[in-house]
């Protein structure tokens, strides 16, 4: 018995020892690699930045080791692309990446581990490696899980303005509103021409995509979408209406001001809140009394939006002062007082 126990103990202890040796070796290797990469990076950075900005024409010699070269280039190009302004600089980044990294990323997408594939996709997007567009498109067809790899593949294609993407997206039920909007921001306005026409009719397009597009319209600042958004204001779907109202707040405009007044008495508090907000943004002082009434709404958010809107009106501070002192509703007085003393507190 004692013998068996000792054997088991020895075996388990050996496992731990092997684990320790494995960790020590990999840690040492990792630290060595980081050391070599840092050294190479710092020795090359000044010359390479001169090359990327166009100050120098000849490309500085890169490290011999393939791994170190890749790491150094990724760090250099990432850092540089964050602050890149000129077309020349962008083209240089693209050229360098296409020359040195395209084959590596092609291989990674084909045979790499999950994190290697995702990293490759991040850099393909950052460095605008258009030569890999077809590779990325075929990579999309291999995606089975709706995970980060799938989303990043879509982001790359959207940033490359791939013409096939919209047709693909309108069939995707699993994507969230946020991801749709993220993709829309990367696409050119022309990509949505057919979509707007489709959305005006009865359609089978995923609801998330429709909501995302209505919300995106306001963010885009493209007033060409304004008539479409104003029509959505009267849609039977409440979420569409709310997204349309939010878009109008971003447009800071609504041609049908009468309709805003109707929304002040909507049965949905979100509509009352957005209507108050829009009235404030558009400085519609003719709705001052309606807003004062909304300052005593049963919902905190509506009261907040109403007082915020009053503050934005011409002489709004005075009306707020008046409301804080004399409003018949104590909740409205409290809110007016808060709005008076509080600055717009966002980060």
């Amino acid at each position: 018995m004692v013998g068996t126990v000792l054997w088991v103990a020895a075996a388990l202890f050996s496992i731990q020892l092997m684990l320790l040796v494995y960790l020590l070796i990999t840690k040492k290797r990792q630290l060595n690699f980081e050391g070599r990469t840092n050294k190479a990076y710092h020795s090359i950075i000044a010359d390479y930045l001169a090359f990327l900005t166009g100050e120098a024409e000849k490309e500085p010699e890169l490290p011999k080791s393939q791994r170190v070269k890749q790491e150094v280039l990724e760090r250099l190009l990432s850092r540089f692309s964050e602050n890149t302004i000129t077309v020349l600089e962008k083209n240089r980044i693209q050229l360098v990446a296409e020359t040195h990294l395209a084959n590596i990323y092609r291989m990674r997408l084909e045979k790499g581990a999950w994190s290697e594939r995702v990293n490759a996709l991040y850099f393909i997007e950052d460095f605008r490696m258009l030569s890999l567009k077809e590779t990325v498109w075929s990579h999309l067809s291999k995606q089975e899980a709706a995970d980060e790899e799938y989303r990043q593949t879509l982001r790359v294609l959207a940033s490359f303005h791939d013409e096939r993407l919209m047709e693909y997206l309108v069939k995707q039920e699993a994507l969230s509103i946020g991801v749709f909007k993220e993709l829309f921001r990367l696409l050119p306005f022309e990509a949505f021409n057919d979509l707007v026409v489709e959305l005006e009719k009865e359609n089978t397009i995923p609801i998330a995509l429709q909501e995302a597009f209505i919300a995106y319209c306001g963010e885009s600042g493209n007033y060409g979408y304004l008539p479409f958004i104003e029509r959505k204001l009267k849609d039977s779907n409440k979420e569409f209406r709310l997204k349309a109202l939010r878009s109008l707040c971003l447009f800071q405009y609504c041609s049908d001001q009468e309709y805003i007044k109707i929304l002040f008495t909507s049965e949905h508090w979100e509509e009352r809140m957005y209507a108050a907000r829009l009235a404030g943004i558009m400085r519609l002082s003719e709705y001052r009394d309606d807003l004062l009434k909304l300052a005593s709404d049963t919902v905190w958010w509506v009261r907040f939006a109403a007082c915020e809107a009053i503050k934005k009106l011409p002489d709004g501070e005075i009306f707020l002062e008046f409301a804080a002192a004399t409003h018949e509703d104590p909740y409205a007085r409290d809110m007016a007082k808060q709005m008076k003393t509080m600055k717009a507190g966002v980060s």
Partner: protein
Amino acid sequence: MNEVWIEWIVQGMAVLVIAYMTVVALIYIILFTIAGPQIRKERQLNQKEHVEGLSLNKDTFPVSVLVPAYNEEVGVVSTVRSMLSLNYPQFEVVVIDDGSKDATSKKVIDQFEMVEIELAIRKYFPTKQVNKAFQSKLYPHLFLLVKENGGKADALNAGINFSRYPYFSAIDGDSILDRDALLKTMKPIIDSNGQVTATGGTVRIANGSTITRSEVEKVALSRQPIVVMQIIEYFRAFLIGRLGLSRMNILLIISGAFGVFEKNRVIKAGGYNTNTVGEDMELIVRMHRSIKEEKSNQRIEYIQDPVCWTEAPSTLASLRSQRKRWQRGLAETLWTHKKMLFNPKYRGIGMFSMPYYLFVELLSAMFEMIGYIVIILGLVFSFVSIEIAAVMFLVTVMYGSLLSSLAVLLEEWTYHKYPDVYSLVVLFFWALTEAFWYRPMLVWWRCEGLVLAFTKKSDWGNMNRKGIST
């Protein structure tokens, strides 16, 4: 005759303890096999690129960062500074001074030039009186609420009442966050379009690391064995336990030190319970309950990468106080929700998670205590053969140290932040010693906590802080 009986009982208990410890070790190994592949899969992921787009994304839901503080004059300013430097598009920071007896409020008011504001506070939950509210002139998104003392849960409820954003993050008043921590924690919520209703990140121990201007500059191990043991313990709890349970969507704890919650869900669940010291776990259990009762598909997730740094107890007295409080909190939560235990209506939560927390997390102290007693008394009075004592001791040693070693491996795969190989040797060395000194201590304190579970009123727990930032 009596001696024979006693010998039988002792031997029977010894076998029971061995069986129990083996099952527990197996559960941990299973959790490791669930958590390990996930960490391995993501270990080379470029974390900077991973959240880069998100920091510019207009769809990152705004977040209210709630910082409850009670007598935190030493650490509160650096905590607030850490929050203000978060890389996140839109957030507000709300410090809630829960009737501190020290200069917590004064430090915040002076440092950030706070001016008093009028309040139109909402009452999702009743709380102790909020006496004053302040807003910073320097940072308009920084607020301070000064309220009467009501405990951490009450302070958080007051913060929720005041907060304006649809998500809130609860951060301990003595903690600091990595700059991208909030982005990383919100990412699953944003990507899932709200299907993920709460997320928690990893809490790591800052003692020993160099922290300047509220940021961790260099990660290093503390020289105090008691702190090193807690570091290992945290790795094991987060990287094996929580990640494993989260992968099965049956996670029952999001650390009170760092979590993000959907406000609506918390309001539906009734907010923080002010009658328990384990308010963080109790809230998560109620949220699960509310999700299951609504037949909703929402999930609660743990993500290993975002890191919150906190100061660990560095004295035996403060560690003892903390562990007794944790044990009480766990016991109170399980007692409050005993109807969920083995209840198939709550699926994985009722059938696995709750029993796991009862038998593995709560009662393990009792089983281990029996184990130690059996070994010591059995050997002294010769009731237990040396073989059984050896087997039990071996199981105890392996139970602790092998799992700790695996947790160190996962740490290296996840963060690989220790700047030298020496730190790994130190972690391994102390992991091997756990069963000889650290674990018996914890077992004793946890048993004390179990006894006290239903006898004492809740408090904030006292810990003499030295402050982690310079």
